[in-house]
């Protein structure tokens, strides 16, 4: 049987669609018997929906490096 720590990890993996079928089945069973993890899983799913809804973009680390360099050379 899966413990809560593993369940949380699989739940996180599931948010990025990286959990295997066997892991998913085990998680489902764990969520049936564990109230705390069920709540966590629900919140986690909600967070993913929110992240998908928000039109967020970000600069890559390289682009930031270039910015930092040009800021240093400027003054």
């Amino acid at each position, binding site marked *: 049987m899966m413990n809560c720590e593993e369940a*949380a*990890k699989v739940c*996180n*993996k599931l*948010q*990025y669609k*990286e959990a295997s079928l066997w892991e998913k089945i085990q998680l489902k069973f764990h969520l049936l018997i564990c109230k705390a993890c069920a709540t966590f899983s629900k*919140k*986690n799913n*909600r*967070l993913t929906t*929110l*992240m998908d*809804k*928000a*039109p*967020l*973009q*970000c*600069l*890559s*680390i390289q*682009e*930031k490096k270039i*910015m*930092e360099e*040009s*800021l240093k050379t*400027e*003054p």
Partner: protein
Amino acid sequence: MTSNKINPEKWVGNYADYLYNYAVVRVSDAEIAKDLVQETFLAGLKSAINYQGIASERTWLIAILKRKVIDHYRKINSKKGKAEVRMNYSNQTDAEGDWLEEQVADPLSLLENDNIENEELGFAIQECIAQLPQKQSDVFTMKTIKGLSTEDICNELDINPSNLWVMIHRARTSLMGCLNENWFEL
């Protein structure tokens, strides 16, 4: 009364993404947005002496960025002929002669609100991400916003997968807590 100190070395790390998101929804072009952010940092650096520390650093930078966005629109509109307002009532030629009323925006539509709300949500999330420790926020943004694969992130940051999942877990847990306070109930 200088409660806020200016700290240009940390600008890019702390505010680049926030400013970038602010700019990109307003000019809707990634390259221009990037340039505007860059210009904002430079302008901030030049007028750093005028910073009185009343507003927070980020508010101050956003204020500069706002001017930059306005300047950008002034610049592209000052080219001859661009400033005049042109209206195309219909851009499909086969719809010519149809009633214009059919094309009027639906006053009961709620779709526009969604866009505004999502933009605000974006800023709320960004604020929460900014509160995370540097390492966690790096991993989380790379994984969630850029959607990189686990392998790529591990290679780039030189960590192992289980390390990555632990950091993702911590980041997600604190984000849930943070959004619970700054956004609606999760």
